[in-house]
C-alpha cells in the first residue's frame, strides 16, 4: 500500500461553528496504480490532495485514524521530515499549469531548479553542464523535441498543453512514487487532453509511478484508470475497480453521475431531456445531516439522515443504506 488514508476528517471554523468539510474519508492507493478521484466542484477532492501534500494552513483542523505514506504516519512527522518524504516521493500537477510557472524565468531556468543534486556527479565545475543536460533529457521525456527553443521561452509564450508538459517534466525530475494530478486537463481541448493522458500513462507503464488523478467528470478520466473513488460534498460515496463500478454502481450518486456523463448522453436521442440530480449541491454552511446526497437522491428514505457506514465488500466499498445492483450472495 503506497498511500493509506482512513477516516480523514478536515474541519474549518466558520462563524456558525466548526464544519466538517471532509468527513471520514477513506482512500487507499496501491503501488503502480492509477486511481481516479471523481467529484464535482466543491466536493473537497482537491482538499484531500492538499492534505496529503501538507499544503493546508493551520486554520484547517485535520484528524485521521491513518494518513500513511509507505507505512509512515505523515501526521506525526515534523514539517521538515515530512517535506523530505513528500518533496521527493510525491509530486503534484495542477489545472492551470501556466499560473504555476514563474513568469519571470525561462523554462530552462525553472527546470534546472527542479533537478535534484543527487542526480549530479563529479565536482562543482561539472554541475552546470550536467544540470543543463538533465533538463534537455527531461524535455525529451515529455515529448518536446525542440528543446533549445523551449529552454529559451518564457511561460507566456507556451500553449496550455506545452505548459502542462513542463509541469509534468518538473514533477518527474524527482522520480516520484506518486503523482497527484489535480484536474490537469479540464481546460484543454480534447486532442491536447489525450496527449497529456498518454504521457501520464507512459510514465505509469515505464516507471511504475502511481497516479492519483482528480477529475470532475466521469467522461474525462484516463482510460487506464484501474480504480475509481467517488466523492460528493466531502463524503466518499463509493470506490472500487473502474470496470465494476461503471457496470453496476452500488451508490445512487455514481449512477447519477454516469447518467449525466457525456458518454451516456451520446446514447440518448437528440434534443431529449437528460436525467440529472435535482437541486444544487449544498453550500458549506448548510450541509445536510446524515448522507449529504440525501436531499437530492432519488432513492432517499428516512433512514438516510443517519450517516451510512462505509461498507466493504470484496474490493469495493460504498456508503449507502440502500445500495443498488447488489446481489445477495452472502
Amino acid at each position, binding site marked *: 500500500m503506497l498511500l493509506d488514508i482512513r477516516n480523514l476528517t478536515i474541519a474549518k471554523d466558520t462563524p456558525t461553528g466548526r464544519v466538517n468539510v471532509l468527513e471520514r474519508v477513506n482512500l487507499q492507493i496501491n503501488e503502480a496504480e492509477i486511481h481516479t478521484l471523481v467529484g464535482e466542484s466543491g466536493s473537497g477532492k482537491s482538499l484531500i490532495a492538499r492534505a496529503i501534500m501538507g499544503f493546508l494552513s493551520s486554520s484547517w483542523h485535520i484528524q485521521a485514524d491513518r494518513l500513511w505514506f509507505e507505512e509512515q504516519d505523515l501526521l506525526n512527522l515534523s514539517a521538515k521530515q515530512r517535506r523530505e518524504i513528500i518533496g521527493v516521493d510525491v509530486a503534484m500537477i495542477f489545472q492551470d499549469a501556466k499560473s504555476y510557472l514563474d513568469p519571470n524565468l525561462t523554462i530552462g531556468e525553472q527546470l534546472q531548479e527542479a533537478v535534484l543534486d543527487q542526480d549530479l556527479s563529479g565536482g562543482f565545475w561539472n554541475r552546470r553542464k550536467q544540470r543543463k543536460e538533465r533538463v534537455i533529457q527531461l524535455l525529451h521525456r515529455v515529448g518536446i523535441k525542440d528543446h533549445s527553443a523551449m529552454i529559451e521561452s518564457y511561460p507566456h509564450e507556451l500553449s496550455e498543453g506545452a505548459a502542462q508538459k513542463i509541469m509534468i517534466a518538473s514533477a518527474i525530475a524527482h522520480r516520484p512514487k506518486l503523482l497527484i494530478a489535480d484536474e490537469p486537463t479540464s481546460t484543454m481541448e480534447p486532442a491536447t487532453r*489525450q496527449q497529456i493522458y498518454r504521457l501520464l500513462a507512459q510514465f505509469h507503464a515505464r516507471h511504475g509511478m502511481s497516479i492519483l488523478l482528480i477529475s470532475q467528470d466521469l467522461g474525462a478520466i484516463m482510460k487506464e484508470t484501474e480504480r475509481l473513488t467517488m466523492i460528493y460534498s466531502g463524503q466518499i460515496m463509493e470506490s472500487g475497480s473502474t470496470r465494476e463500478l461503471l457496470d453496476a454502481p452500488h451508490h445512487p450518486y455514481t449512477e447519477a453521475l454516469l447518467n449525466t456523463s457525456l458518454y451516456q448522453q451520446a446514447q440518448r436521442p437528440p434534443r431529449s431531456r437528460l436525467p440529472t440530480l435535482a437541486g444544487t449541491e449544498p453550500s458549506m454552511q448548510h450541509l445536510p445531516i446524515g448522507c449529504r446526497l440525501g436531499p437530492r437522491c432519488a432513492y432517499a428514505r428516512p433512514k438516510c439522515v443517519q450517516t451510512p457506514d462505509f461498507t466493504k465488500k470484496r474490493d469495493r466499498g460504498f456508503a449507502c443504506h440502500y445500495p443498488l445492483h447488489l446481489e445477495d450472495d452472502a
Partner: protein
Amino acid sequence: MKPLLDVRDLTKTYVQRSGLFKRKKIEALKPTSFTVEAGKTLAIMGANGSGKSTLAGLISGAIQPSQGQIILNGQVLHADNYRQRAQHIRMVFQDAEASLNPHLTIGDQLEEPLRFNTGLNQKQRRERTIHTLQQVGLLAEHMVFYPHMMSTGQKQRVSIARAIILNPQLLVADEALATLDSSVRAQIINLLLDLQSDLKMSYIFISQSPEIVRHLADDVMILKEGDILEHGHVDDIFNDPQHRYTQSLLLSELNSA
C-alpha cells in the same frame, strides 16, 4: 421562409506591427456567410484559435467587423448601434463567475438591461425579473443574493436569465457549458431545450464537445483558421465528415478509448 439571422461576408482582420514600417495582417475570420432560422440551433466547432469566439463577438457586437453585414429579420445591424442589437441578440459566456458583477445583487444585475433597453417602470421591472428567475429555475428570493452566495450552476442560470430577460431572438453561447459539472451541465441543457421550445429562440452555440453539439444543434459549422470548412445538418456532418480536421474534432475521447 426568411432566415432570422443572415450573415454576409463577415470578416475580421487584425493589423499587427512587425517592424518600424512593416505591418502584418492577421485574418481572424475570413469572409463568412451563413444563415440561422428562427427556433433553430447552429453549433460552431473548431480548435483553439479557429475564430469561433471572434465570430461570437462579431455577432453580439462586442467586436467591430472589418467588412460584411449582419442582417437580423431583414434589418441591417450597425456595429455601433448597441441598443438595437442588445434587445435581440444576447450572449452567455463561459465563465459565469467572471461575467457577473460581484458588487451587485442578482436582482440589480438582471434589472440593468431592462433599465437601459425598455421603458418599464420599477414595479414592472421587478415583476419581469422575478418571472425570468422562475423561468431559469431559480426563486424570487435569489434577487437579494450576491453572486458569491451562489453555486456555479446557479450563476450560469443567472447569466442565462440576464440573457433572456429582454426576450431576445438569438442567444449566443460561447462555451457556456464547458466548465460546468456534469449534473449541472445536464440541468442547463434541459433548461436551454425548454426555453427554446417555449420562447422559439435561436441559439448560436459554440462548443468543443461533439456530444453536446449532437444533442442540441440542428446545423453545425466547422471553423478552421477563420475559414468555414464544413457547414451542414448535424446528422450529415457527424455521419459523413469530409475533412480529416472535422473527423479529429468529432472524435470523442470516449469513442477513441
